[in-house]
């Protein structure tokens, strides 16, 4: 963590500012757009477009390697995960990970890709170092969110059809628990202390909170943004701040982002964004939240202190996910 915070300063002081594309801490914002097969790179702050990186067909989920030198992009229609070199800003490799990869995670040691294969109802484990497929684990249909626990012991997979979170042992690859959650679970966030797993339920319109020790459901968050019917509230994206105090949940067709107090599980605010808000990411200082809107083809830039959208930036056809190179 210290090194990551220090490196931009080191660059500025000793290397001088002529290497903005240095792999760590560029502050670049990356957005995948499903229908024009590119990842668009924005300069944070100005939100100027730096580059459009052509990828495989239908790029969706984005994940950095633990050292932030590589950005992985799931390209569903090409059955691959493309690897973008963050310094060069180009695709340097394409990894075959089975049919229609959707969400995925990288193991904390950077060695494995855990990818859900939306069509097949599988979680694919791919060894990045040895370039080979390690396992295909059958899960419920339309697996979506994938999350590796920071201790690399458990992999969580949400199945949209089974309405379950599957817990998989990262070592033995066994399915160790099936936790029934709300309707059509999508994505996850773990609290920083690793105690609670928050799961968004798109059709249920809620967030289910799971105790990671007992694998039991211990709470639920409901959302009631003004002027929207319950059926329009379709939570998908979720991020939790590093201090574990706040969760930001994108509400899909309700066109808002909710701020939730993690301890009390109460919604504090709703911020109006674009249409069908899904992917969300925080800047390093957590003062900026980026949200992609799939039905208005743009990116909302939110000032988290003022709780306001300060910019709205065109982001390609059907933007799906956003990450920040912090």
């Amino acid at each position, binding site marked *: 963590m210290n090194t990551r915070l220090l490196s931009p300063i080191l660059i500025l002081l000793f290397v001088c500012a002529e290497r903005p594309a240095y792999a760590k801490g560029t502050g670049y914002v990356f957005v995948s757009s499903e229908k024009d097969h590119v990842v668009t790179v924005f300069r944070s702050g100005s939100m100027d477009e730096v580059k459009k990186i052509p990828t495989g067909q239908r790029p969706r989920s984005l994940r950095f390697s633990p050292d932030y030198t590589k950005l992985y992009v799931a390209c569903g229609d090409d059955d691959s995960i493309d690897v973008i070199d963050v310094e060069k800003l180009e695709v340097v490799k394409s990894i075959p990970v089975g049919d229609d990869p959707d969400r995925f995670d990288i193991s904390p040691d950077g060695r494995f890709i855990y990818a859900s294969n939306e069509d097949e109802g599988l979680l694919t484990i791919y060894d990045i170092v040895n370039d080979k497929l390690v396992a295909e684990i059958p899960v419920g249909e339309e697996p979506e969110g994938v999350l590796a626990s920071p201790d690399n012991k458990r992999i969580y997979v949400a199945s949209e059809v089974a309405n379950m979170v599957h817990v998989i*042992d990262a070592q033995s690859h066994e399915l160790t628990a099936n936790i029934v959650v709300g309707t059509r679970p999508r994505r996850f966030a773990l609290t920083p202390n690793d105690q609670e797993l928050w799961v968004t339920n798109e059709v249920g319109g809620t967030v289910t909170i799971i105790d990671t020790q007992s694998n039991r459901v211990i709470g639920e968050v409901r959302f009631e943004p003004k002027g929207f019917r319950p*059926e329009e509230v379709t939570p998908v994206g979720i991020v939790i701040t590093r201090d574990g105090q706040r969760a930001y949940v994108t509400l899909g067709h309700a066109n808002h982002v909710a701020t939730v107090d993690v301890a009390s599980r109460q919604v504090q605010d709703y911020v109006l964004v674009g249409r069908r808000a899904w992917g969300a990411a925080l800047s390093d200082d957590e003062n900026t939240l980026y949200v992609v809107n799939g039905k208005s083809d743009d990116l909302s830039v939110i000032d988290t202190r003022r709780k306001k959208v300060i910019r709205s930036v065109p982001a390609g056809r059907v933007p799906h996910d956003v990450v920040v190179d912090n």
Partner: protein
Amino acid sequence: MPNTTACVLLALVSLSSCGLAAADTQTLVIGYLEFGDDPRYRETFLESRYPAQPWGRPFEGAQLASKESRFAAMTASAEFKLERRSAISVEGLMQAYEDLHAEGARFFILDLPGPMASALAAETKTRNSLLFNISALDDELRQSKCQSHLMHVAPSRVMLTDALAQFLVFKKWRDLLVLKGSQPGDEEYYESFRRSARRFGLKIEESRDFVLGRDPRERDQNNIALLTAGVDYDVVYVVDSQSEFARDVPYQVQKPRPVVGAAGLVSDWWHWAWERHGAPQVNKRFFKLANRLMTGYDWAAWLAVKVIAEAALRTKSSNSQVLIEYIRGDEFKMDGSKGYPLDFRKWNNQLRQPVFLTSFNWVVERAPLRGFLHQTNNLDTLGFDERENRCKF
């Protein structure tokens, strides 16, 4: 070593708590009853690929859902077993019902024309079973001929005509020329449509009866150019439950006007081109299993099994009475890959659901359209609302 022990212990605890290691697995039999002589599944009709008509028997839809329900079944310590029976009379169907009932089946999926579904329901009222109508669109099954244990997964005809009416109002294409057939079902369809036109404020400029044929003496009624001349209108609305006449209308009209109804823009309750809510995955899985595109009929068969699976998942029970109670209760809500939480209307057992407005390879809109609001649930802008209800259980 201590680590390994802890791991194994944890695994055991979670296995038992989530039912993975359940010893007594109950078999939950789901009866699937179909009419062997059903004209809707004649080979030549299926091969025509008419919009919003079946493109094959919908059984594979039920099979797909049964396969997808394994985790839900596991939660309830059950396994689903689909039993398909075909018969050519109500008596034959009743015999199949009795046989399966004796085997413990309490859930039945009915792929039957309206009158047969109605007859079967009338004879099984007191048998503690739940029937799912997956293909009869007849309005009266939801109104005067409703049955308390007959659940309608397929939409009613008025839901389809309401959806199209919303679209026409939204576009301000209010003046209609109606071309109407005289085949079985056409009159009923016309009635549903007239109700929708009244409800949403569409104007029927003129209604003309068509005849399918080439007889020059009947050209006033079989020639589309003549049928669509001599009057002004925004759209041509074709009422044709058989779809054969309708398919020729869009490019044979006298005036450059859109065609809707049984051709052109068609109301449907599923479409292979729907891109949202996980529909592409459902469509792909169906295609893989059935080797053809998925229609509304297939979707209804798929959804009927998923209703049972949802109840098993939430109640963690395989007891049919517990499941039936849950399905009919207030808590029931499920996903059907159309984007709204789905449940059954309490007053007539109709599944609330969005309706698609489709062209041949695209979903143009999804109803309820923006701006069509209802005091409790916008889905109730489609079909018989509570205040119009004539169903008494």
